[in-house]
């Protein structure tokens, strides 16, 4: 803990940040699951030993990079979702924001606790989205939604014998849609307010998700719904 909070932090090159965040997500999820599995063995261990194991796992589970979600990420991400920029940087920033949204909200969904999000895979899939010459701005958010869902960026942790339930796809879709609605909406003034706006977006999307046509062959209609929700966020 002392090293994490006060020790020297190496500067991570920009091209490695997304894979590092994915590794951190993976390690954190493994630690969380290990703690759950070891819980049943806890009575067999001496109390001090169990406390050391648990605090170590807690530390790994909650380890976070010092990076914040500021305008340098949010502006290009919003530009990409709103089809105002089409650069690889925009795609990366968008994937970064989707990863941020996933980290911020997925534990509130019981079915998604053991499901992971890969920012690297998402960014790679978003770079393949056509520019507005072949895709109108109104369906850009829907294309992002469909691309990410089909990319394999969201998936169950390999090697874990945990039940994920039947709602994974639906709940992951709602969460992803809420992140896009957040990026389509008018920005908030501070990072704290952005987090609050993200929470509101998830609640609003959950509340009206049943009204969204599940027909993923109609990206125009889906994108229209996302925009409409963003207007009311």
């Amino acid at each position: 803990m002392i090293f994490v909070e006060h020790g020297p932090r190496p500067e991570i090159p920009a091209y490695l940040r997304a894979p590092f965040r994915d590794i951190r997500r993976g390690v954190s999820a493994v630690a969380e699951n290990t703690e759950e599995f070891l819980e049943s063995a806890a009575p067999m261990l001496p109390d001090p030993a169990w406390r050391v194991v648990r605090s170590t796992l807690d530390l790994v589970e909650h380890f976070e990079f010092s990076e914040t979600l500021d305008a340098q990420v949010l502006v290009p991400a919003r530009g990409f979702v709103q089809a105002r920029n089409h650069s690889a940087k925009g795609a990366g920033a968008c994937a970064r924001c989707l990863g941020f949204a996933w980290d911020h909200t997925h534990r509130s969904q019981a079915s998604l606790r053991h499901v992971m999000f890969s920012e690297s895979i998402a960014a790679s899939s978003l770079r393949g989205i056509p520019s507005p010459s072949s895709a109108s701005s109104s369906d850009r958010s829907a294309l992002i939604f469909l691309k990410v869902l089909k990319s394999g960026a969201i998936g169950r942790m390999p090697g874990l014998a945990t039940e994920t339930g039947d709602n994974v796809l639906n709940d992951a879709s709602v969460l992803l849609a809420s992140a896009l609605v957040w990026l389509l909406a008018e920005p908030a003034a501070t990072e704290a307010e952005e987090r609050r706006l993200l929470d509101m977006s998830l609640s609003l999307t959950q509340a009206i998700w049943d009204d969204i046509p599940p027909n993923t062959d109609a990206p125009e209609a889906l994108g229209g719904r996302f925009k409409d929700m963003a207007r009311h966020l």
Partner: protein
Amino acid sequence: MMMTNLTIPPHNDVQLHKAAQRLRWFLAAYEHQIHTTEEETGNRYRTDEKKLTRVFADWLKDFEAQKPEDPRDNTAYVGFAAGLMLRALLRHQPSVSEGLPNQADMSNPAHFWPEGYLYVAFCLNVRGLVLQSDYHEEQNLSDLMTEIRTWWSFRENAQEDPSRAIGFLDLFAGDEPEWAFPQIFRVKLARSGKGRSPKPIGPGKSGAAPSQVPDDGGH
């Protein structure tokens, strides 16, 4: 008992009726209303934000479904939209009373039905503010707002059918209520003589007041 004015959250350059269609403004305004009502009445409330978001989502759906095309009907629609909000709040009940002040007076509507009073105060305050800010009209509340017999009737009717709350909100706001089909805007518009729709709606029954509304309830 007077209803205290609500301090509204900022809405930048957006007209208030547009800001009120945003979840972020709605949640902030509702929070302001809770503080205002707690100070005014001594009541204490606990609120579930998930339910409150559900209220907003349901209201939005109802609001969009009946939005008039003719801008001349917008002012009337402000009042109707406030009634739809009251109905959604009563359906989902996002706030729960956690305590009344010592020596609460049960003939005071705020203590007789704390949740209902909070919802009505919120809807009337937003209604009044939108009318004043965007349409330069004043809302003149009825004396029935403080009349406990009206509140008995209001609570009983709203529990039976939350749509009847729409008529009661009109009553409290000093407007002519539509009792037969309170949930249909065009009926209300037609009855008020402002209807611009060529099609008559409904079976044409006279709008009978719900049970136990005081005789002078309709003005």
